């Protein structure tokens, strides 16, 4: 949805307004932190799979840092396929973790361009961080009790992260 708004407002990738709007969405916290004795989880619900995946990404990065770190804007295109939606969700979040760890890219505004139960294409806007002042290290996205469920209002899931 944010992608359409950017287009409508004619906000290019480097636009400061675009970045501010992304931070605003990031801070809306459209997820719920779920307690776990050793690790942490997030519960996410969305009217569409696209919303579910985008909010799951925002939730994961909120766990990593409640405020996005300083850096310069960057975006990455992600295209993934998986045999089932749960695996696609794990792969999607794992891809973002990989970009954070190896490319120092902190995702802020995921724009899902295409999503099917086993396929996703997205452009993810965010910051290439200058040194990482982050507060939690997520080792991995777990498969623990993972199930993407259909509800009357759309989809929901709970994802646990290994810290």
């Amino acid at each position, binding site marked *: 949805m944010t992608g359409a708004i950017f287009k409508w407002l004619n906000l290019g990738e480097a636009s400061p307004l675009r970045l501010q709007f992304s931070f605003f969405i990031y801070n809306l916290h459209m997820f719920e932190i779920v307690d776990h004795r050793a690790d942490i989880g997030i519960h996410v619900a969305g009217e569409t799979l696209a919303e579910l995946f985008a909010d799951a990404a925002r939730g994961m990065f909120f766990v990593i840092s409640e405020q996005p770190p300083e850096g310069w804007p960057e975006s990455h295109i992600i295209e993934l396929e998986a045999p089932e939606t749960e695996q696609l969700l794990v792969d999607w979040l794992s891809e973002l973790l990989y970009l954070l760890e190896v490319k*120092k890219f902190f995702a802020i505004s995921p724009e899902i361009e295409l999503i099917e139960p086993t396929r996703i294409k997205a452009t993810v806007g965010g910051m290439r961080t200058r040194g990482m002042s*982050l507060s939690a290290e997520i*080792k991995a996205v777990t498969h623990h009790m993972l199930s993407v469920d259909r509800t009357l209002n759309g989809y929901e899931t709970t994802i646990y992260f290994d810290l």
Partner: protein
Amino acid sequence: MTDWQKSIHKLSDYKIKIPRTSFEGMRVPGVIYAGPEILSDLLTDEAPMQVVNVAMMPGIVDFSLAMPDIHYGYGFPIGGVAAMSESDGVISPGGVGFDINCGVRLIRSNISAADAREKADALAAQLFRDIPCGVGESGDIRLSGGDIEKTLRKGARWAVKKGYGWAEDLEFCEENGALEIDDTDPISRRARERGANQLGTLGAGNHFVEVQEVEEIFDERAARIMGLEKGTVTVMIHSGSRGLGHQICEDSIKLMRVAAQKYGIDLPDRQLSCAPVNSPEGRAYYNAMCGAANFAWANRHCLTHYARKSFERVFGAPAERLGMHLVYDVCHNIAKLEEHETQEGRRRRLCVHRKGATRAFPAGHPDIPDRYSAIGQPVLVPGDMGRASYVLLGTDLVMKETFGSICHGAGRLKSRSSAKANFNAADILAGLAGRGVTLQAKCKKSILEEAPEAYKNVTHVVDTCVNAGLATAVARLRPIVVIKG
């Protein structure tokens, strides 16, 4: 929430059983070692259900076990031990965890605790400067593709060759710091990429470097053999295989999801995905896991090198003269192919999963260094950053009851969210200062999450192991300086 009072049988004051008939699908009973203080908390947790879930895995032998530091994990409980038949059992990446060969090592010294306390601030600052730690922190070591390959194959031996750690350290690492690996092909490019700049980094969360005082000796002879003397200083290091190990686990779970379907394995939790030990998928995971384990040993060797250098700078003497010899290095997230006598009295090759549990081979076991053959391998049990850690020895009973395993630490008592909501950093720092502990941490959040009260009292965990007859205590270590990521 399951009503565990109805499902458990008390075998003794330190051991409970979940009978095989309690839940449909259990192939063996669950056995949990838990003293009175541990049990009251355990019965309000869902961790026993994870013991039950593990008991449903194909080829599990005798029991699904949990140590007294048990707490809720994902897939396996933390503190879980499960041995699967090599011939018709399974191997599970979830039974090892993402941080493959997360482990602990202990370095002794001739330095008096009084001297270390006098220099605590300088020591903390120096260690914090020299040891890369914290979220996403890279180290100074950059590994080429060839270096990564050698690290995966040779583990700590590669580190020693490059000048990190001493050659004599190798004898005092479990498996001499390297598991044999047939094939590194199953280790993905991405895993190698994640490991390329993370060798010699501590990480974050519960990983630490701690300078400790040998506060109490319970077994003079064993302590003498280990080089531990009351009132002297030890250094404990807790870290693992970093992003390389996390990626290998992630890659393997994905393959195991498909393999589980292929072999018709139905499991109550996706995180338990597994494949027969001797299947192509099982062998691929075992090889990749060995590579990650070797990377972790090399990592702890590099961290040891940095810690020794810090001590040299602060105390103005070479680490050799400071007597900074390695006591032992144990892994507590691993699957090992070992031979054990099962309850039916047969010796069998088993794949022993230890997820948050430590190997504790007793005196006379052929797989431990000559120096320790008369007493058994040292078992290192870190506690929280305010109270204590312990050095234990396994008894002969561990070979009969727990596939040669005991606890790995204190185990969490409070979730991270609850720790953040109920503690404040200033109080924690004041509390630590009152206990004579100097803390250096990268961020406030890790201080809150790692608050001593967020963990079980490690003494209760150790008491359970000792009173259940699994272990004897050698020494208690008290923190002086703590470095956290």
